[in-house]
């Protein structure tokens, strides 16, 4: 259960970072397509990079470090938006924030895979968490706006770290899958 809970909470955290970034960009930079495309492409590219970075890794540390790094980048992007609103030339820098979140996602999948015999429940629970986080992110923004988008992700990260620690301790020694 704890590995599944970890995957679920990680999905929630990713969605909180993604919806928060969307809302910040939509309000303070532009709601136009370049914002959406930047978030989408950097997220996907970051995930590919994260999968490569975590190659052969077998500990919780990189997941927490990269997710923490993504959170720092998220706040940096927000501060940049407050200081330079509507400045489209800074879009690549804001893309750096979602790239970091994508890397965290890739590192997570490559690392968490060691706790699952089948890949199916890993993706299943992470995706369920993502859906939950998407709804929570939307409702949270609607009700509390930036107070929510700024406070929820660190709370999510704390829960991810706790659940990850529990899952990692429980599944010792971890299963190590390899290609045929």
């Amino acid at each position, binding site marked *: 259960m704890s590995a599944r809970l970890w995957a679920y909470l990680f999905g929630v955290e990713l969605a909180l970072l993604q919806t928060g970034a969307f809302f910040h960009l939509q309000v303070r930079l532009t709601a136009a397509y370049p914002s959406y495309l930047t978030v989408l492409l950097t997220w996907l590219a970051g995930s590919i990079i994260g999968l490569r970075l975590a190659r052969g890794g077998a500990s919780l540390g990189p997941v927490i470090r990269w997710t923490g790094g993504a959170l720092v980048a998220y706040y940096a992007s927000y501060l940049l938006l407050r200081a330079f609103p509507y400045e489209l030339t800074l879009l690549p820098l804001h893309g750096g924030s979602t790239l970091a979140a994508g890397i965290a996602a890739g590192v997570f999948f490559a690392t968490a895979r060691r706790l*699952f015999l089948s890949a199916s429940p890993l993706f299943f629970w992470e995706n369920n968490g993502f859906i939950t986080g998407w709804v929570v992110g939307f409702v949270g923004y609607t009700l509390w706006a930036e107070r929510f988008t700024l406070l929820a992700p660190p709370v999510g990260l704390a829960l991810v770290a706790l659940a990850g620690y529990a899952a990692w301790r429980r599944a010792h020694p971890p299963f190590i899958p390899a290609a045929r």
Partner: protein
Amino acid sequence: MNRSDPPLQGAPFAFPRLTLFLAGFALILLQFFMIREISALLKGTEIVILMVTVAYFTGSSVGYGLAPHLSRRGVRIGAAATLLIHLTLPFSLRWIGGWAADYSFGATYAIALFVAAFLLSSFFSLLLPRFIDQAAGGEGDDPLLSLYSAELAGAVAGAGAIWLVAPHGPFAITLLYEIVMAAVTALVMGNGPLSVAAALAGVAGYALFFSPLWDGSLAYYYARLYPLRDPVPLYSAYSPYQKVDIVESARGRRYIFLDGLQNYGDVDLSAFNAYLTGVPTTLNPQGKVLIIGSGSMESVAAASPVSASVTTVEIDAAVLAGARRWMADVNKLERATNWTPVIDDAKRYVGATDERYDIVILDIPAPLSIQVGLLYSEDFFRLVRSRLAPGGILSVTLAGTFEPDEPTARTVAAGLIRVFPQVVAYTPTWTGRSFALAGEKDAFTPEEAKEAVYGVEKGEFSFYDDAEVRAITGDKRPMTYDDMRYPVKRSMRRVIVRTWMGDR
């Protein structure tokens, strides 16, 4: 470790990386056009788009959950069934949804959300965990790394393809999707070139019938959902923001629909443009005009002859392209030599520009989404005020009738009165909608404003001076960048009314 996970059934599939690359490519395309198609079917507002998106991602969970339980034959049947269903979806959903709406619009909701949750993305998400599990257990890197990377790389390529193909219309993007889906199906079926050839031939045959099926289903849907007799589709586009349709009724009137919501077409919507543009340009003639939004671009025809220059800022290039081609009779853009179109988000444009305008016209739909709500917010009005020239005027619809018990109009007015020293409102009797003019104290007098409205109305209208506007608005909370509850609440109310009270 979850030792209870069931073992895989059947022999491994061939070409897993190529299959996953194409699956990632197809998924992004599918998300792009089907979320818009289903949102339009349900008359997309903020809550509708959220529900459809959540249902779509739920489909992925359905696939992930089913992956280890299906036999190889089961996956193949799933592939063939998905291809067949997806070939019909762009049309069949409209026929089924339009038919169901005759009984209850709630039934249309249920059907659309069921399709989104179970019949869109679920097949694609079967593949990744399935392929990872079939390759696990050997030596070398975890197969998740290369296989998930292949799917993600496909998604990146798909996003690039959308950028290139979407401007060429729904046929191009739908056909591209069906071709890729056919290739995925052929790879999963595993009969080699024969399978690929058969699937592609099927898609080619389908392409021949695309236009009549598209037009027929669209006409059926709009005839059922709106009181339009024999509508003829003229233009459709999947833009990055919404689905855009322009149709012509049997009486020759043209209608614009954005995500299934009527944006232009009725006589009162035409009058809407006359008030919104005609009144401020009468008060402040030969000025520099900024029009935000505009849809049909009819307001350009009203503003251009009586203004020094007209700039429109429209976020969606597909709306502008449709208006240029199909609304030329009403917008007369070819005559507007002092008109400059800008494709941009209005917040960004107004926030970044150094220009000062004599008139700013907010020609946008009612606030049923956060994106539109932001343009009715106190913060945006403040931004607009900072870009008005001395004596400049903001002209805006109140998106409802300005009365003590009408929440939308008072919410919009609440933003205006917090920003502008002078706000007046008027309600022409035959439109039932109210409009407001806002500016500095010396921008206009109430008498001048009343006279300008009379110039357009020629009849009865209710007029509210600044004191009356403030009294009727009372302590209503405005929309702000930090408070977007109102458009979400209004969108939610519409969903409830439509699903449970039968109103279309």
